[in-house]
């Protein structure tokens, strides 16, 4: 801050009262500069932060319910995979309906239906079902799960992600509806994305 006294400058100090005046004026102007400078910075910074952070919260897809199959079409004890078809919106682009994910549905002997997201909680590969071993198996890093979704072995931090199901009767037929959702992978908690 003392730099204004650089030797290059004309000497303001020839008359001492003039010097006091000049110093006061300079102080005042310094204040002005910092006030105006912060105003300038604010005009830029506020919109900048708003802009940046609002683009971070993209993809806030609300969970949606999909009608997948008739209850009677499910074979008890044999999990079946269903593809979720929906429109996908990516920022400004809206894609026509297409596969956005898949779920495993299984019906127990007493008719209760469970649904699992087929996304592996380890790093997000698609989980297969091995009928012979009666277990779910992720081919990427060999995670295995029990038919009820619990961990058997492998690197995954949690069991398969169960999804909410409901049964709806439409014109006499019972239909299975699933609330499809995506979850954060690689962590022990089941934490929904979006």
């Amino acid at each position, binding site marked *: 801050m003392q730099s204004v006294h650089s030797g290059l400058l004309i000497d303001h100090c020839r008359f001492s009262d003039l010097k006091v005046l000049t110093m006061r004026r300079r102080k005042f*102007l*310094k204040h002005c500069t910092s006030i105006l400078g912060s105003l300038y910075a604010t005009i*830029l910074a506020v919109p900048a932060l708003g802009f940046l952070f609002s683009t971070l919260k993209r993809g806030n897809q609300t969970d949606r319910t999909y009608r997948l199959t008739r209850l009677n079409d499910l074979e008890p004890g044999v999990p079946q995979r269903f593809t979720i078809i929906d429109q996908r919106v990516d920022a400004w682009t809206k894609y026509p309906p297409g596969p956005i994910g898949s779920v495993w549905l299984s019906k127990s002997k007493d008719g209760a239906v469970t649904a699992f997201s087929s996304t592996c909680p380890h790093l997000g590969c698609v989980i297969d079902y091995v009928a012979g071993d009666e277990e779910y198996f992720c081919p990427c890093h060999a995670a295995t799960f029990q038919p009820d979704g619990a961990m058997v072995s492998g690197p995954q931090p949690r069991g398969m992600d169960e999804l909410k199901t409901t049964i709806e009767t439409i014109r006499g037929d019972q239909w299975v509806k699933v609330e499809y959702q995506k979850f954060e992978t690689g962590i022990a908690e089941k934490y929904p994305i979006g």
Partner: protein
Amino acid sequence: MLPQKAQQWIDERTGYKNFLHAIFLLNFPTQRRSRWQFLWGGALVLMMLVEMVTGALLMTVYSPSEASAWGSVHYIETQVDLGWFVRGLHHYTAHMMIVAIIVHIFLVIISAGYRKPKEFIYWTSLLIGGVIIGLTITGNPLPWDQKGYWSYQIETGIAGTMPVIGSTLRSLVVGGSEFGNLTLTRLYTIHVIVLPVIALLLFTFHMALIRRERLRTAKIREAADDPEIDFQLDEDDPVKDEITQPYWPYQTTRTLVLTLILMGIIIIQLIVYPALKNQHVSVGHDGWEADLPASEIKLEAPADSYIPYVARPEWFVRFLFELRHLVPKELEVLVTAVLPGVILAVLFLVPFYEKVFGEKWGQRLAIFVYVGGLLIISGISWYGIQMERNAPDYALKRSQEIAYAARASWLASKNGVPPEGPDSLLRNDPKSMGPLIFARHCGICHTWNGHDGTGQYIMELKDGKRVKATPRASDLAGFATTKWLTEFLMNPRSPKFFGHVGAMKGGDAILNGDMNDWADSYVGPEGILTKDDIEAVAALVAREANHRDFKPLSEETVKRGVSVFSGIDFKDKSGKVVDFYGYCAQCHAMKAGDPEEEGGGAAPDFNGYGSEKWLTDFIRKPGAERFYGDKNIMPSFEESKLSKHDLNLLVKWMRGEWQRPEQEK
């Protein structure tokens, strides 16, 4: 802030204080006399900073490709928080910078800032001005909307007329001969990397020169003031009346005041201007009503060479565009290539004027050339804009453009932009495409509310004067509605319907055919049919079209309509059942009006009359047995003439079927 000790510790090892002083001009001596004049340079730097920050922000969303550019900018405007503000700031600050550099150079000239040893300072400021204009030219087309697309067409076109290098330059910039993805990626590269880097280099050079010059002056003053040194300035040496003053804080305060004033203007502009921009046209000309209020239209329609748009260049190149139209074709290159070169040379040579004319007159000449040039250029631009706005169909064209812009924005907000690109928003929209398809295929003979669907008229030369051409067939606005049918039945020979067909080959058989005889015998004061009868049968037929706003008919109307159509139970004015020989079913088939299933056959089939299917089939083959048969005089529009897609849009548009804002409520 760091404690004093730490500051010192770092400074001893880096010398950062000196460095900061040099960079931020902290102890940079400034002339006192011209302190208000040199603020514009400082303001330009601060505005450049605004451009860099907002530009970087926009880069985080913008996507330079044909399919996504428009969508991403629309997303910025409508979805991103304060996106409209950031984009507006970026846009209007750029224009303000052009104004600022014009003022800055003017002030340099009037204070003789080009005089030895400052020639290079002057020249670099000219070059920086050129780069700023380049940045604006390359920035405007980036949203890839109609405005940017067409103005860039003009600008690259102007570049292409340059002798020798023109066409190579153009294809280099455009990325081939046609506009496309490469045009955008190149524009983007030029806009965000090439020009900014050049601008920064020029700016550094410019500042280094100024610094050198100021320090030199300060040293001279110091030496002259120092009694120990035997050095005196000449009486008339300009350095004599320079009292230098450090840049910081004296100049910084003033610079910030000016910058904030300019930014205030920019912010007012970006808030107010979009609403005012289209005030001078009455939106909604000839059915081109906009789906959004003008203030909410942030972008023109997506770039599409099929959608009409009048190309207008940016205001600072407008004069070239206007001049180009004023000169004959062979001289065009004079305007587009030679003239800008001459302007540049005139500006560059300013420091040498004084060599020839002496200091006083040299400077006067420079001021005269600069101000005069600006006045001429703005005069030409102003003239061009006035000419365009006063053109007879300007209001129509502009409201058409606004309607397209609004439509595209509305559709994009409603449905999202499809992956194939934003132009498909309008290309698949009956409201937007219908008028164009109608004008192209049908408008040659038919009319739509008197015009060709788009609000234009087909003109023909009559006795050396251009006059509206007489249509050759019926007016189809409101086709197959109760109102249209009623009017037709009351007077088939009216010019709105068969009136003009007589002029065509075979048309007489229709003009003076059975329908005409029927009207002569049964309609009118002497005829047996009342207005109510006509309206009832018209409504009955119109029901076949099932238009979106068709109101269900009362039972009474249906009964009455059927009685006219089939002649069964027909009651005359007094309510007495009488024989009626003018019933429709003799010639026209329509199950809903014909209990006895007489089935017509001699004239067009009315089953599904005016419906999507009926219209499609009819347009494809009006000479089919079901329709006009061998009486037909209308050309058929096969797939090769009118694609299925276009026909579908045309039919939907004729029937008024498209996505509407009011339906959403």
